[in-house]
């Protein structure tokens, strides 16, 4: 039965095109419905809700209400952490990628680094917070080690005049830098995974051509390599930014709700309507989409530009 139907369908009778029902659209219908109902409509619902009041009338009050100090502070600290972890992660990831691609290291270093990066870039969420608490928390291995050093120095080294004894090592993991340092654990590997192919795309011939024309190494980097790499580098920075901007699990497990970042504020709002206005929650969600959306629009633009060179 199935076979006959297929044969009948694939044999093109004359004039078939004229009466053809657009059946080829049926092939993408399940995907379209899935995306519509579970990705696009829920998001639109929030965006529309951000511009409505409780009676369903159009208003900008919710957007204006975002200007209250605790919400602005939440956005600001989220942007700062995402920016810091994205730029630092991108620079350190680039340095690592350069080391394994162009540093003349043995082959196993490269494959081991790439494999580990694949793992670490997916090692996020709650367990990552646990790992950093076990490292830099009050009883963490690194904290204990540094305090051991501090004690040893204070007891055995006569400090020069004017210097008091060294204070105890007490890194506050529940802080801006604590969270940034933790986020770097998945940001750096993600950068390595994405930028290594781009570095591989820097063709050897370009370096040789530049050298033939009398360029110094510095000139080669300034006028050839960096302009080629720049779009994919900047694009990845933006991807890393969006990556940490929407992350909640690590921060929540690390700090509870003591660090006031946007996703945690939104989480608290969804759980218990802490802002006493559901439409303000929609506005916060809209703000998040707006920021990551802008970032990703740039990313797509930059990626399109860099791919021209890496073909």
């Amino acid at each position, binding site marked *: 039965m199935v076979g006959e139907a297929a044969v009948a369908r694939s044999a093109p009778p004359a004039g078939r095109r004229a009466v053809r029902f657009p059946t080829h659209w049926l092939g993408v219908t*399940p995907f379209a419905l899935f995306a519509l109902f579970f990705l696009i409509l829920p998001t639109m619902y929030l965006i529309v809700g951000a511009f409505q009041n409780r009676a369903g009338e159009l208003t900008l009050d919710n957007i204006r209400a975002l200007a209250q100090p605790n919400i602005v502070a939440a956005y600001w600290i989220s942007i700062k952490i995402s920016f810091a972890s994205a730029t630092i992660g991108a620079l350190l990831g680039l340095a690592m990628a350069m080391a394994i691609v162009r540093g003349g290291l043995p082959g196993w270093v490269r494959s081991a680094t790439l494999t580990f990066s694949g793992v670490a870039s997916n090692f996020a969420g709650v367990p990552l917070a646990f790992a950093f608490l076990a490292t830099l928390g009050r009883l963490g291995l690194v904290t204990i080690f540094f305090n051991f050093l501090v004690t040893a120095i204070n007891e055995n080294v006569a400090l020069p005049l004017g210097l008091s004894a060294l204070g105890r090592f007490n890194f506050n993991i529940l802080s801006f830098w604590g969270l940034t340092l933790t986020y770097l654990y998945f940001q750096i590997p993600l950068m390595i995974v994405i930028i290594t192919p781009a570095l591989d795309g820097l063709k050897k011939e370009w370096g040789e051509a530049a050298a033939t024309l009398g360029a110094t190494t510095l000139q080669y980097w300034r006028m050839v390599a960096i302009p080629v790499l720049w779009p994919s580098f900047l694009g990845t920075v933006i991807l890393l930014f969006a990556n940490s901007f929407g992350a909640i699990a690590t921060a929540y497990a690390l700090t509870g709700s003591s660090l006031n970042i946007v996703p945690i504020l939104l989480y608290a709002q969804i*759980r218990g309507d802490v802002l006493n206005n559901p439409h303000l929650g929609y506005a916060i969600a809209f703000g998040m989409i707006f920021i990551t959306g802008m970032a990703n629009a740039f990313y797509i633009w930059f990626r399109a530009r860099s791919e021209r060179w890496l073909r």
Partner: protein
Amino acid sequence: MRSPRFWAWVTFGVGAAYFFIPLIATLEFSLRMRRGVYSFDAYAVVFGDPRFQATFGYSVVVAVFTILLGVLIVVPTAYWIRLRMPQLRPIVEFITLLPLVIPAIVIVFGYIRMYGSNSPLPFLATARGTDVLLIIGYSTLALPYMYRAVDTGLRTIDVRTLTEAAQILGAGWTTIVTRVILPNVLIAVLSGAFLTFAIVIGEFTMASLLNRPAFGPYLQNIGANRAYEPAALAVIAFVITWGCMSVIQLLSRFAPKSANRPH
């Protein structure tokens, strides 16, 4: 000035220290439960905890259904786009990348508002319905990775010739997709599946906001109330992630490298 290779080693060394010290510290911390000696007590407590078994089991089942749903949606779509509607490719690719733009917390917030008990599609009215919604939500999170994996797999086979050959032999569309296309991209599908598993198994935000007894919220709860068990759980989670990525690497060795007719 030293040679570039020296600085490459220094960079690699500093990076390796940053990435390995937390792992060593976590492992060491997880062994400290018994006073004065290293022991596996924390692991014994974790594995013996019925809530660990229940939540981990729940998350494994959810992950398996997420993978099945993901394959069901992505494979026919990616195949159809390659075969018949290449003009839709940019739109479909854009949609599959949306979950990287829209944070998970926003997606699930939308679900909670749209699919409540009083809505036309009351997923949240029953526990079973909420499970289904969680699986759907996870499928959207996995969409970018699944689509990329399958599309890369399809690139290495000659979709058009395989389809025409199957049609000549009398195969219908279901047969073509399940018995011709799927086996040919199985390795790519499995790569996507294991990546999905790694993402879904400890996911916190969606499971927590939908109030499902999943592994992620359990982890968070243990972290808030216990001292040594979280470190043991972090080690277990790292081993799971590492296992998934190793399987993907292993699979990529079996993947065909080039197409019969490269596009």
